[in-house]
């Protein structure tokens, strides 16, 4: 005798398994983006994955080794002369900066500002970059052993690169300012207009959000971090205005920014540590 047909038709086992896995994947995606539940997994894994990135970076290591060992005497002399010139220019800048800093300190004292935020920096080296072109993240060789904390700003010689998102024992993950999920408060150096620079998913472009059509913006204007929000310190270069479009379909300007930092090429990065110090009131106050 045949079994009676089931009242409700069940999907085949494979399909049920697939649906279960898709549901599990979506739960993981939601938990990862909306909560910090998966952060411990990432924290452990960032140290496990670092040797893998070291191994895949053999090409760059070989290029560096070749550059270190096979340079001719003429090249070395030329490099030394160039570095000596650069050093002189930088020393002059350092002198100017020191006098400006002293002046700024005394002005802050006059204004009664309670504290001055100074940044200390620590050099970090890039270990690897994931292959996914949509993931604008890097792995660096500094972790909580070096007192790195989540949210810490990262810069290179050109300007702001990004901020730390996951901190392992010896390695950390940083998100670049060009990542589509990243945004930072900026201001125009020339006009002082404040805005939000959001990542576009393209390493060469940032976009300004909600800029009024009558804003005083010119091509080539330099944007610096405004310091609002407290994550990024004030005054570091972020980018230059590359294009300004006034679209009729949008109430805001479409402003595109070229980052000043080398987001794809920098191997040496600086982690900024903020240290607050009290300013002594001026004599005679």
């Amino acid at each position, binding site marked *: 005798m045949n079994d009676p047909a089931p009242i409700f038709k069940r999907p085949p086992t494979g399909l049920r*398994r*697939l649906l279960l896995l898709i549901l599990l*994947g979506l739960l993981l995606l939601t938990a990862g983006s909306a909560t910090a539940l998966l952060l411990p997994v990432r924290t452990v894994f960032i140290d496990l994955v670092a040797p893998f990135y070291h191994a895949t970076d053999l090409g760059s290591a070989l290029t560096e080794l070749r550059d270190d060992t096979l340079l001719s005497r003429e090249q070395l002399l030329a490099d030394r002369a160039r570095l000596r010139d650069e050093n002189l220019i930088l020393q002059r800048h350092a002198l100017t900066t020191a006098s400006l800093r002293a002046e700024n300190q005394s002005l802050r004292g006059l204004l009664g500002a309670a504290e001055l935020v100074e940044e200390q920096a620590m050099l970090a080296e890039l270990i690897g970059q*994931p292959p996914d072109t949509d*993931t604008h993240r890097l792995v660096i060789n500094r972790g909580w052993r070096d007192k790195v904390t989540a949210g810490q700003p990262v810069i290179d010689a050109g300007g702001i690169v990004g901020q730390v998102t996951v901190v392992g024992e010896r390695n950390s993950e940083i998100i670049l300012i060009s990542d589509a999920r990243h945004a930072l408060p900026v201001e125009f150096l020339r006009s002082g207009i404040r805005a939000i620079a959001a990542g576009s998913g393209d390493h060469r472009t940032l976009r300004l959000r909600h800029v009024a059509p009558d804003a005083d913006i010119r091509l080539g204007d330099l944007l610096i971090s405004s310091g609002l929000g407290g994550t990024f310190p004030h005054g570091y270069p972020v980018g230059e205005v590359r294009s300004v479009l006034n679209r009729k379909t949008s109430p805001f300007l479409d402003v595109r920014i070229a980052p000043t930092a080398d987001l794809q090429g920098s191997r040496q990065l600086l982690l900024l540590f903020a240290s607050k110090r009290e300013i002594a009131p001026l004599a005679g106050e």
Partner: protein
Amino acid sequence: MDDLHLKLADWLWLLPLGLALYILHLPLLGFWRADVPALLVLLFCIYRPRGLSLFAAFAVGLLQDLVALAPLGQHAIGLAVLAYLAHSTRSWTRLQPPLKQLPMVFAGLLLVELIHSLLRFGPPPNLDALLSVLLACLLWPPLVTAVALFRRRRAV
């Protein structure tokens, strides 16, 4: 001893997958990166005697997510769907010569790219993504031929 060999053989598929993850992360390849892990998952699902379970494909995807610093679940869902499609068409695909399998391989890998874009709420796959899918398709016939040669040698 034979049991040990069988158990070891059960885990051998992890070696090429590890190698595929390594190749995927080589910085010298630039935008010409083929999704070799997805290609291998497809290959194992079709040509491994017992296939590759959906859970194993999902686990490979999770590993890929962790290594690529991507949101957990992004590659995992894509590879699970790919494994399901490969299982559904396994008996038909195995009867076809490698060149006739190419449209199915192309469709499968493109679907994985589309799933990634969808889960990222990003734009549809761009030209680079399409090129990497095509490059992966070019790798398919040599891989299938290598598997066939390997099995023939083992049979002898």
